[in-house]
């Protein structure tokens, strides 16, 4: 699952997932509220999809990424999902903040295409075994 409002970054994340070679269904949501609704829905309906890996942007409309992260960790079904936070900021404080709130990894969005593709390594590392 990808939580990202910027279509330019959605495209890049899609390319990265493709480059990583994993073949899984990808859900894209465009803001923080849509993301929390997605988790709530999974709790209500056992047949609804529940992500095993969330690639989460921090600077999201409607609900901040950290709020989405907290919501996820309190949900019933999706709480065990791996979370890779992607952000433009590389400040130590922001990094610490998301790790303390339950993120598994932090990726600073680079400004070179090849560097962006390095996100694939994190995806391979954190995608739970068996979901590939």
């Amino acid at each position: 699952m990808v939580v990202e409002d910027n279509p330019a970054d959605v495209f890049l994340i899609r390319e990265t997932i493709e480059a990583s070679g994993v073949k899984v269904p990808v859900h894209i949501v465009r803001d923080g509220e849509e993301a929390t609704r997605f988790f709530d829905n999974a709790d209500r309906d056992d047949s609804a999809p529940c992500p095993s890996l969330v690639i989460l942007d921090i600077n999201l409309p409607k609900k901040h990424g950290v709020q989405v992260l907290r919501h996820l960790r309190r949900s019933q079904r999706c709480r065990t999902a791996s979370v890779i936070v992607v952000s433009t900021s590389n400040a130590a404080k922001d990094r610490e903040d998301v790790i303390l709130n339950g993120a598994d990894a932090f990726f600073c969005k680079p400004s070179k295409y090849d560097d962006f593709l390095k996100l694939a390594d994190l995806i391979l590392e954190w995608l739970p075994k068996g979901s590939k």
Partner: protein
Amino acid sequence: MTAQARKALTHLGNGSDPASREILDALPVALYITDAEGRLTYFNSAAVALSGRAPELGVDKWCVTWKIFLADGTPLPHDQCPMAVALKGGEIVEGIECLAERPDGTRFWFTPYPAVLRDSQGRITGGINLLVDITSRKLEQDKARQAGLLLGAIVDSSDDAIISKDLNGTITSWNKSAERLFGYTAEEIIGRPVTLLIPPDRLEEEPRIIARLKAGERVDHFETIRRRKDGTLLDISLTISPVRDAKGNIIGASKIARDITERRHAEAEILRANRDLEQFAFSASHDLQEPLRSLKIYSELLARRYSDKLDGQALEFLGYLRAGATRMEVLVSDLLGYTRISKHEEGPETADANAALAIVLASMAGSISESGARIVSESLPTVPVRPAHLQQLFQNLIGNAVKYRSLERTPEIHVTAKSQEAEWTFAISDNGIGIAPEYKEKIFGLFKRLHTSEEYSGTGIGLAICQRIVAEYHGRIWVDSEPGQGSTFCFTIPRTRNSVE
């Protein structure tokens, strides 16, 4: 006049003896003799010169002078002058200061020394009077008094509190502004300890100040807090200088206290405005990064994936687009660095300059070896600057020295630090291309560049960052340069900030 001198004078007799007269005439002191009735029988030339007249012998009585006044200006009739009083058998008055007027209207000050002449039976036979001219001394005194009055008026009209104290810390003078500032009147506070003005938690300042004064040192613009009579505190700036007696011994101190409460408020206001502005600049440059990243990546992708579909001019345009985005990225990141300079961070507040330099040189190893530069440094001090800030200073200044090297010679860069009384002066000197004098100030401005990007890359933020760091620590930065020969960038770091130590 001593008894011996008076005796010698009376021996001169009534001035009729030619030998005595010769001596009296030559005396440089005004002198005259009278008979028992006070009629003048003799006067010398000095008396004529002083009184401005030649009296008529046997007619003029009591005095050689034309008009006499007491020191307070009251006219003194001739028959009441000290000589007259003495001749009439009264007290012999000596050493008083009199004012006299000459017939031409000019005045002079003198002190009469009258004596009576007696015969063998002790009867008064006449009198002799010496007039000592004290005009110049009186004028000096008057000048000093006027100067004293003027100084007093200046001290009293000063907006600053001016106080003096002795070496025991006892207040010895107190001007009007001191009354206004501290609330004590001069009567209340003179003779009392200066520690009355010091809040209890700052009492340890006084012995340190006294110790410095005893060593003959001044305390300049020491910013501290003092207490008013009503117990309220005020921010003041103190300048304290030792006061010496005529022999040069230190006998106390003068203090000038300036109320800086308003200035402190204004400073706090400016600080707040600055912080807001910094916050704004930080957010702006931070948020600029996001769209810039997309711009960069997608112009890159366009070039990678569609070059074969674009014609020559489209590719050229794309090249400009990418170069612009790259340049803007560096600018934004440098601007972020500029806004992040702040002393108010956590972590160590002193830095070993040797360590800071080593870290910087290690991080620049690539560009240094590429340029072939030789970097020489002396043993450097530990200074009260955050390590990251000192590293930034070295990074920018050495980076510039390497970048603006001369292609005609091997770059040589010297890093030195000189110890001065109140500060350290660091110097980074190179043998590079140098800077024309007209740009010596300009180069420290934000985004100020002397070269095109084709000649030398850069954003014009490096030296602005240096300027800002140095200013944070109340130091100075400047450049000395000989165009074509090299530049020396110097910056100072005060040893301590606003301290009595």
